[in-house]
């Protein structure tokens, strides 16, 4: 699942090179040729639409209880059945998409912001900053990601906000490593030397010349991490460390459903499928983007 995957993301991203402009067909054209990426894109667009339009498409509210209809199987009245409080599963899963998306975006932003900042500083300045950043990355990578996230939640206390922060803290190292590697190469490029020569300050070189060139590996990484973050959120919420009831996080719906596995298997089945399709979407799109940004990596 999550942990070793990021290592491979890193390896994949590390070797990214900058395609020469003009010579290659546009990103979109290359992306469109990959059926996987297109399936991923469709899945993510569906997820976005579901999250945005949740109020309009959900047949019932987030927490509309109706105990007389508890644990109803899927059917004409409730398409995906109801849970132990008689809440409509379809509606809960639709609203759950908002939480997954929110967690994915915030976590990835936290990780990206930290990772890019520290990675750029480490790669650009080198020396002791580099040592410290690399040391921190090594320490944060010493543990499997799930374990690290669980431990951080134990320290910070349970809850969705702490969870987003914890998972962000787990993943910043992935960004920092990739960005650092890229900056090391970028630093030697002629346009950076030229900027130095005309007397540009470090801050200007970093903001105007280095960061824009980091965009493609960061986008690939962020897309893949969105999936990982959503997966970890569901795991932690399942363990009762993330979203608390009645918040309809897919993971916490699964947690309450396991008690009714025998009586009402649908409560356990559908949120899992929702998680899988969402994460699959981000993985497919991320892989597609990576291949499109560097065609040499294809089939590896």
């Amino acid at each position, binding site marked *: 699942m999550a942990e070793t995957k990021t290592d491979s993301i890193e390896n994949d991203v590390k070797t990214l090179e900058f395609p020469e402009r003009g010579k290659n067909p546009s990103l979109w054209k290359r992306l469109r040729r990959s059926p996987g990426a297109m399936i991923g894109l469709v899945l993510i667009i569906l997820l976005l639409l579901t999250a945005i339009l949740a109020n309009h498409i959900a047949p019932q509210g987030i927490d509309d209880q109706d105990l007389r209809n508890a644990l109803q199987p899927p059917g004409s009245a409730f398409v995906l059945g109801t849970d132990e409080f008689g809440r409509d599963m379809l509606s809960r899963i639709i609203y759950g998409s908002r939480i997954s998306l929110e967690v994915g975006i915030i976590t990835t932003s936290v990780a990206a912001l930290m990772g890019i900042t520290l990675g750029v500083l480490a790669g650009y300045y080198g020396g002791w900053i580099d040592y410290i950043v690399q040391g921190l990355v090594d320490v944060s990578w010493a543990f499997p990601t799930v374990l690290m996230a669980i431990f951080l939640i134990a320290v910070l206390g349970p809850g969705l906000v702490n969870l987003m922060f914890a998972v962000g803290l787990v993943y910043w190292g992935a960004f920092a490593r990739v960005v650092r590697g890229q900056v090391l190469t970028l630093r030697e490029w002629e346009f950076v030397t030229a900027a130095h020569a005309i007397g540009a300050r470090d801050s200007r070189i970093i903001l105007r010349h280095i960061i824009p060139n980091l965009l493609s590996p960061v986008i690939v990484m962020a897309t893949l991490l969105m999936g990982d973050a959503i997966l970890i959120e569901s795991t932690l919420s399942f363990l009762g460390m993330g979203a608390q009831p009645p918040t309809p996080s897919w993971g916490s719906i*699964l947690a309450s459903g396991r008690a009714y596995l025998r009586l009402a298997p649908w409560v356990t089945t559908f949120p899992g499928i929702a998680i899988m399709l969402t994460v699959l979407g981000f993985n497919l799109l991320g892989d597609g983007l990576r291949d499109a940004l560097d065609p040499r990596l294809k089939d590896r």
Partner: protein
Amino acid sequence: MTAYLAKRLLFAIPVLIATALLVFLALQLSPGDPVDVLVSPIAPESVRQRVRTELGLDKPLAVQFFIYMGNLARGNLGTSILNKRPVIELLKEKLPITAELGLAAFLLQYIIAVPLGAIAAINRNSIIDWFSMIMALIGVSMPDFWLGLILILFFAVTLKWLPPTGYGGIDKLILPALALGLPRVGRIARITRSSMLEVIGQDYVRTARAKGLAEHVVVFRHIMRNSLIPIISLMGLDLGYIIGGSVVIENVFARPGIGNMMLQSIYSRDFPVLQGCMFVLAFAIILGNIFADLLYALVDPRIRY
């Protein structure tokens, strides 16, 4: 080789000390008070104070850390706040339960994944090749705990072939091992496949074929043996995955192992147990990686440490 091993083991010590320090400090920053676990919230302050002194929580942080490290060096991981038993005893009791699950999942992964990847590499674009790719994609996208629940639903609740939860006996090991191992099978198969494809293109493979060796000799002796080398380094990484996953899977299948104990210690804020669990798991990961590196050198004579 012995010198290398000694060096690696020696370097593991500072890493372990750093882990102990970080785990210790992080837990000190934690907002909860372990005293709350033992004492009723309405108890008078004098009682709370006495409990705090008993646990040594009233001493300065640095003193607490050195006491903790000194005990650690003597193999004393402290005492559980909750049930007053020595943490090391609890860990000894739980370790075999977790090790059994981890080993089973590990074996299962490679027994399925390596042949699958090999067949996919030899028959590119075949059904097996596609199957391994789809399995890899679904494997990394699926929550492993959910797979566990679905396995329980299918094999225990519906078919009644296997017991849903618990520990003891091979029948109770099959489902958790599948839930822990299956998600990675596709990914390992894909790595096996690309490693094999790389070897298939080598000159010595062409030479082997050119001198008229039987195809199975070429595949097993020339291709397989050389392409398995990267898989071994993957095994070291895999250990971390299995240890992380076992925490969740043990919870799903109610297996009383280290992972489950760790979760319980978080819920009950039993910090000595949590520290002990983190420490043992870190130790296992470090040892596993050293072992993988040694195995690497053993299999590939070109690598000399």
